Every structure is written in structure tokens, then in C-alpha cells.
């Protein structure tokens, strides 16, 4: 828990949870097990991985019998509005009963006939305090018909400026930079890296974004299988290398014994390194003046899967 102090001197205990080992066939069993884990961890913020909603829905047998991930996800998209009522209510209750901020991982959000891959954060009062749509999509996500969000939201977490980064947004550094330049102190990341070769990419995600932006990150990665597709990233609590043991950038990492990573964030440590080595002040804006034009030239053939006028995010 926080010690109540604000400014540069607060501390906050946080955790990223992979879902490995939790019972997921029944929402009630899942909620009871997660409550027990949160009681043990005694954190102010807990972060669940991407696809938490789909994982629970599929494990509960609600998307029908199929071993094909893509087909299963399509079915999930169609019923997500109905399913989300139960999914969101469950996590609202969990946040309220545990008295914590809970990032419930992601689900599919439907709005105006469009689908978004969206993360939700609940406050200790059980209310949604942030909803963040994924802004960059994988080739597969584009083929599934998901749309991109176009806003990034910061929210207050006991005086800490926090934001959510969803899925492969962690590998697109523009997202982290926008958050950092708007003053983000902490980023909660909901990820789901495929087991195998893709896991080698993980340090290029949140770890690298922390190092070039000097915020904290609580990174949750899904561990488990959905319709024969295995996910295998590691949960981690990440800080600037200079404030972590051995300069690794990790305050804690998931291991074989624990399906989570948990650590105490000491803001004074981060403030010190930001003062001694103010990385963001070394940005060279004049050299970036060509970027807007280059970005506009980079419009990809499949990069506009929705009409711009229909974006209703932020309503």
C-alpha cells in the first residue's frame, strides 16, 4: 500500500499477474483465487494480462468447441458485449473488495459497429478509472477486423500519473513517448506474447520504453493456452536501469515458482536518476521536424480499416 505521502517520496507496492495456475473455468472460482492472491500480495496496483477476458470466456466453454484461435476469437468478438457485462462486473468487485487499482487485462469493446482491443482499469471504489484502446494492431488483429484507438489517456492513481499500454503498442515507441512527454510516472502494460521465438522480443517492449522514458512499468504477460495457442512472456516490474539491482532494469520478474512479479516502487529513486540524467531533456526536437511528413507517407494499404469520422473514442 502507499504510505500516504505524495510527491517524490511516496512508495507503492505493485504486482503483475500472469494468470498461470489460476482456475479459469468458472468466473466465481477465478475471482476467489485472485482475491486470495491479491490478499497475499498486499499491493496498491495489480495488472492482469492481455486477453484475460477472452481467456476466461474460452476456458468457460462460452465460444463453442473449436481448436482454431482465429475462429474462436471471431466468435468471441461477436458475443463480447454480452460477455463484458460479467467480465467487467467481476473485476469491478475484485478491485472494490481488495481496495486496489486493478487493470483487468483486455477485452474486445464494441462501439458504433467497430471492434477495439481495450484494457480497463478499476479504482478501489470499483469504478472504471481508465479505458484504453490499443492504437497499433498486428497483421492478424487487422485481419480480424479490429480498429485502432487514437487517444492515449492518463489517469490519477493516488497522485501518480498513470497510463495503460495495450499489446503491441509496447513495441511502438511513439506510444510510450507520448505518455512520457505528458508526464506519465507509471505505465501498466497488458501483454500476451506468443510462447517461443516471440518471447525474445520482450525486452524491446516495455523494458526498452522504460529505459528511454524513465517511468515505472508494471508489465503483465499472459501465461497459458487459448485454443491451442500458447502464450509465454514474463511478468515484470521495470524501472530505469540505474535504480534497479545489478542495473538490470528489473525490480522483479516472474519465475517458475511464481506466476507474478511484485515490487515496491520508490519514487525518490526515480526522481534522483531523472534529475542526474534527464534523458527527455536531451531530445532534439529540431531534428524531428521531418517526422510528421514521414509518418503521413507511411500510410499502409491496410492501415485504415475504419472511417476516421466514426471514431467515438473518449465518449
Amino acid at each position, binding site marked *: 500500500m502507499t504510505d500516504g505521502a505524495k510527491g517524490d517520496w511516496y512508495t507503492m507496492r505493485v504486482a503483475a499477474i500472469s494468470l498461470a495456475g489460476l482456475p479459469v473455468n468458472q468466473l466465481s472460482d477465478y475471482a476467489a483465487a485472485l482475491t486470495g492472491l491479491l490478499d497475499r500480495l498486499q499491493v496498491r496496483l495489480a495488472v492482469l494480462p492481455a486477453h484475460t477476458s477472452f481467456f476466461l470466456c474460452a476456458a468457460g466453454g462460452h465460444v463453442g468447441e473449436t481448436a482454431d484461435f482465429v475462429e474462436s476469437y471471431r466468435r468471441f468478438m461477436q458475443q463480447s458485449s454480452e460477455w463484458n457485462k460479467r467480465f467487467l462486473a467481476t473485476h469491478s468487485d475484485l478491485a472494490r473488495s481488495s481496495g486496489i487499482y486493478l487493470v483487468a487485462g483486455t477485452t474486445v469493446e464494441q462501439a458504433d459497429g467497430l471492434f477495439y482491443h481495450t484494457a480497463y482499469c478499476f479504482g478501489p471504489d470499483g469504478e472504471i478509472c481508465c479505458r484504453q484502446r490499443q*492504437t*497499433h*494492431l*498486428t*497483421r*492478424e488483429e*487487422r485481419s480480424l477486423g479490429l480498429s*485502432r*484507438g*487514437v*487517444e*492515449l489517456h492518463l489517469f490519477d492513481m493516488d497522485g501518480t500519473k498513470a497510463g495503460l499500454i495495450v499489446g*503491441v503498442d509496447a*513495441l*511502438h*515507441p*511513439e*506510444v510510450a*513517448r*507520448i505518455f512520457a*512527454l*505528458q508526464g506519465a510516472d507509471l505505465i501498466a502494460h497488458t501483454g500476451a506474447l506468443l510462447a517461443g*521465438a516471440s518471447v*525474445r*522480443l520482450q*525486452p*524491446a517492449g516495455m*523494458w*526498452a520504453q522504460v*529505459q*528511454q522514458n524513465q517511468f515505472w512499468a508494471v508489465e503483465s504477460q499472459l501465461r497459458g493456452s487459448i485454443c491451442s495457442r500458447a502464450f509465454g512472456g514474463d511478468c515484470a516490474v521495470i524501472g530505469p*536501469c540505474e535504480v534497479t539491482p*545489478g*542495473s*538490470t*532494469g528489473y525490480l522483479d520478474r516472474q519465475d517458475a515458482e511464481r506466476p507474478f512479479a511484485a515490487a515496491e516502487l520508490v519514487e525518490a529513486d526515480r526522481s534522483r536518476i531523472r534529475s542526474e540524467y534527464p*534523458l527527455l531533456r*536531451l*531530445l*532534439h*526536437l*529540431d*531534428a*524531428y*521536424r*521531418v*517526422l*510528421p511528413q*514521414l*509518418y*503521413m*507517407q*507511411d*500510410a*499502409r494499404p491496410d*492501415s485504415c480499416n475504419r472511417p*476516421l469520422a466514426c*471514431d467515438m473514442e473518449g465518449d
Partner: protein
Amino acid sequence: MALDGWKERLFRRYLYWLCRPARLRRRLTALIGEGGPVHTSVPLPDGGRLRVAALQVKVKLSKDPLDYAAEVHRMVREAASAGAQLAVFPEYNNIQLLGMLPGVEEMSRAISDGGSSEERREERGNRREGSSRPAVTVADVIRYVGPVMSQFLSVLYSTLAAAYRVHVMAGSFLLPDGEGVVNRAYLYGPDGRLIGTQDKVHLMPVEMDWGLSAGTEFHLFETGVGRVAAPVCMDATFYETFRILELMGAEVVMIPIANPEPYNYWLALRGIWPRVQECPVYGIKSALVGSALGFAFTGRAGVFAPVELTPDGSGVLAEVASAEEEGVAVAEIDLHALREFRLNHPWRDSNPELYVRYFPSVYQA
């Protein structure tokens, strides 16, 4: 300026004599003639595949510039012997020539102390009060000796590139440019011509204190070894460098480094490796190692690629084993495979609407 007395002017004439092109060319002719160029006609990559060499240079101050020339020749020859069509030298690859200056070790104290803004302020104060403390800055030294070095380096790298028919990225040099001093990378073609230069854009705080001027734009060079760029060291800390170059069409980004700190895997990981994953290009990191002028440099030169383009999924095609000793990392890269990968990239995406909404206003906040 403290280096414009008659003694200094006379000494610089001596340096010009020491570094005269005729003397250097005679030495290079002798060196290249010993066994002849080992790879006089390296084929350029019609199939998109080429071999590249990342050089790890152990710094050694040279009283005689011909000693430096011999070292550079040896490394170019080694790269060419390994079949490299592109050889990449590290950052600050001309500080070895400061060994020509008498009292350079005393000067090194001024250089290393120059990293403290507080001391710099104190020094400025002392100067105003007529203190006897030396008031020579790194920029002053480079302005003094730079014109001599500039001519020497140009002849050296141009001659070696042409002799061995390789592209040579000579590393970056501290050199005067007008009133300023820049940290500038040089790229030579296999015909010996200078293809282009790149000034370091993101300066370290210590370099600002030294009085260096930053570059203001990134350059892309169309060459026989693909579309290449050569930003310098700290430029790789910021994704913007690689994004700009990727969107300009870069395929190979060379990063010469000179890190004055003990080697740590994780600290080193903050540079080129994640940048190559974020912006799919091949990356070549060259490193200056060893001790000179009050600094102990470490690093591991290597050739990097998106993890999907490396056989073991590590994102590393070749890397020098030691962080303190000289070495060469040679690897084959495949530009056609890179182009194909970019077209079918599994997760790379673009969201111009998001960028327009936030950039450039967040930069200016």
C-alpha cells in the same frame, strides 16, 4: 583562445609536416604492398546479400600518426580478408592522434574534468579572476589540431577504402566546423570517394560541456551496400533517430560508440538492439575500447537484426566476445530478406491519426 601563441603556431606547422599526405601515402603504399590487397574486387551485392564488419578498436595514443595509420590499415585489411564489403569503425576514432600533442596526459585531466558543469563554471570564474588554471577546453584543442587531423584522416580512409575496394565508415571524429566543433561520422565508398557525413544529433551532457555543436538532421546514403545511415552513439538511445531513418528508407544503420563506463549487458542493451526491433533495419555497432585521456571505454561491437531475421532468434548475428579488447564481428546480411520481412511484418503498424493528434505538441510541452 589559449592556443594561438607563437609556440603553438610553430608547433602546428610541425604537425602539418608530420601528417603530410605524401608521407602518409608512402607509408600506406608500403603497407598495402606487403602481400598486396587481399580482396581487390569484392563483388557488390546483386543478390541482396553482403558481409559487413563491426570493428572494435582498442584506443592507443599515437605520437607518430603513421602508427595510427598502420593500425587502421591492419583492421581494414582484416575486415576485407573476411570478405566484408562494409567495415565500420567506432566513435571518437581520431582521439588516438591527440598523442601527437606534448603534455596530452595533463590535458586529459582537463578533458575528463570537463564533464562537470560545476567545475566548468568554476573554471570560467577562475579565468575571469586571472587564475593560472589552464583555460583550454576540448573544443579549443580540437580547433587547434583539427585541421591537421582532418586532412590526414581524409587521405588515410579514402586510400584504404579504394585499395581494398570496401565501403569504410571511418567512425566519428571530433573536428572543427566553422566556429564550432562537431562529432562527425564519415562514409567512404570503394572508389575512395567520400559518400557523406553525419553529425551526432543527440549530444551527451559532457559533450555539451566540451563545447560541441549538435547536428540537426539525419542523412541517408544510397550506396552499393544498400541504403545506409551513420548516426552516432547516443543517437541510438532515442527511437526517433531510427524511426526517421526507417521511414526515409534506411536498410542498414551504423552506430559508432565510445562508452566511457564499465561494461554492463543491460546498460548496453539500451541502444541499438531495441531500436532494430522497433524499426526493422540491420544495425552495425562499432566500439572504441581501452583507456585514454582519462576515460576507460568499453563495448561489444556487433551486427544486429530483427529477431525474426536471426537464425537463433536473438537479434544478434555476430558480436565480439570481449568488452575490453580489440575484435571484429563479421556477419552476412540479406537486404532482400529485410525488404520481404518489412512487407509482411507480423506486428509493425502505423497510426498517423494518433501521431498527428499528439506530435509535435507533446514535444514542445
